[in-house]
């Protein structure tokens, strides 16, 4: 056996030396010597399976966009209202549900406008049966910064900008997907128990009203109020950062959204 294996191994090894030398040479040439300047984004035809494949069966597809609330910041279970919503929908419909959560912590309305320009996000929107979103909390509170200087003028300015962006966002969603139901989870006042709560509450109400107004201009866009959920016992439903909801708070939001989504037995939204 020894007599046979040795020459074989030597032959294989010598061959592999040549092979790897060749590979190494190619790597050096490709990476260091050649300077490729031509760039071909014409790869659409090389990837043959480009067709949107997500929508093959009867399951519900949910697209979630927006800020940290959609992300679930503050929930010890890490689910956020999207997670609880999915659980409830699963129970209701009995089928599996696909979620694409593209929310980014700290996202503001202008960030979302930019994000909605990305082709893959657009694809997810187009494929979705249900779209849930939160946006505006960071425009309004800027991580608590706005509270220090309750400058009504600058807040008014950002409100106008926010509404403008919001209509662009709704428009972009509707353009990609004219059929899906859009649920925009509204703003609440996390600072309701702090000083000057009257002023902050008035501002939040103001923003919510304006946002609901613009939502009404679009078909099947539902603006879901959350202000009342956190009105009376904010401390029970807020996370320790006193800004994001905690698990209980998210469950409240999820219940509210879930009650608005009707599913048929086979799992398709009406």
């Amino acid at each position, binding site marked *: 056996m020894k007599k046979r294996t040795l020459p074989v191994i030597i032959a294989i090894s010598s061959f592999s030396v040549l092979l790897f030398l060749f590979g190494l040479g190619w790597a050096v040439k490709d990476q260091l010597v050649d300077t*490729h300047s031509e760039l071909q984004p014409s790869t659409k035809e090389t990837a043959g399976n480009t067709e949107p494949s997500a929508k093959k069966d009867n399951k519900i597809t949910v697209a979630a966009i927006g800020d940290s609330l959609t992300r679930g910041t503050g929930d010890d279970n890490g689910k956020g209202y999207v997670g609880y919503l999915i659980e409830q929908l699963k129970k209701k419909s009995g089928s599996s549900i696909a979620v*694409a959560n593209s929310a*980014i912590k700290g996202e503001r309305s202008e960030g979302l406008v930019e994000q909605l320009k990305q082709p893959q996000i657009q694809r997810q929107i187009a494929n979705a049966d249900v779209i849930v979103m939160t946006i505006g909390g960071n425009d309004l509170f800027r991580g608590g910064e706005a509270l220090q200087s309750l400058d009504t003028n600058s807040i008014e300015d950002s409100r106008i900008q926010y509404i403008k962006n919001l209509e662009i966002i709704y428009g972009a969603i509707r353009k990609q997907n004219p059929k899906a139901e859009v649920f925009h989870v509204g703003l609440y006042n996390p600072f309701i128990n702090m000083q000057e709560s009257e002023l902050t509450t008035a501002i939040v109400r103001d923003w919510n009203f304006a946002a609901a107004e613009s939502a009404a201009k679009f078909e099947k866009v539902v603006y879901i109020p959350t202000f009342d959920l956190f009105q009376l016992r904010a401390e029970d439903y807020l996370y320790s950062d006193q800004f994001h909801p905690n698990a209980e708070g998210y469950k409240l939001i999820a219940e509210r959204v879930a009650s608005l989504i009707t599913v048929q037995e086979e799992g398709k939204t009406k």
Partner: protein
Amino acid sequence: MTSLVHNEMLKLLRKKRLYVIILIIAFLVPLFTYAQFKQIQTAAEKLGTDDWRTRLQQEIVDTQNRLSSSRIQDEWRKFLKVRLTQQQYYLDNDINPQAPGAPTFMRVFAENSIDLLLPLLVMVVAADLVSSEASGGTIKLLLTRPVQRWRILLSKYLALLLSVSFIVLMVGILSYLISGIVFGYGGWNLPLLTGFSVQGDELVTNSVHMVPQWQYILMEFGLVWFVCVAVGTLTFMLSVLLRSTAAVMGIMLASLIAGAILVNMVSSWESAKYFFMVNLQLTNYVSGMALPIEGMSLGFSMAVLAVWTIAALVISFVVFTKRDVY
């Protein structure tokens, strides 16, 4: 010369080291295959879809979210930003960098084992090439033959090169064959992007081009081989210098592991980039995953490794031919 090399290969085979290494690989590959299989499954379960675009999009968003966290280090943030641009680039060009298949597994396995696992395996073979002759006393018998000393050492070194190549080839073949059972054997022509380079903390994409996966794999294995030869040569030098195989192994092991730790610190301690062990991850340059460190590029890392290799060779030959053997 050929018969000398033949003789050395025979000794290597007698020690059964190569078989042990093949066994190790044959044991590890199914493990990783299973792990990756599981990973794909859980990801599909979580998202409710097995569409890779959704998954990649999700990864991008996750990276974006991590970027917005205030508790991450600057270096890591830079790296994530580069990653992000790259992922977005793949997505925009509609290329799935992780399309399942045996070639993809083979590529990822090579990329992940280049800095530690493979050098360790090579070390196992190289560590006692000369030192075992010294500690076993057979070196005297060997040197009494009417053959010049440098020829003896050269034959040992060539035998080492052959077995290193053999190991790398086996890693390729075994990872392909075994993972193919689960992932299927196709995917050689999958387009991949290469040529990413980093300037400052920006990802430069103007020399990015597409290569088919088979070429990509061939290039990566060339680099893997280069790294293994460099590590093998250094171990070989230690084996000449020290009589104890355990000491050789200890030193190599320590420096390889130190390298794995140092890699993360090079950004703060720049001159560490001249150590051989922080330059082992050559494949990262090809895939554009390298940590963005000033002055480190494929050319630089290869030059560092080459200098260390040549120095090790010179030292080995000088010491071996000059040394008193008693």
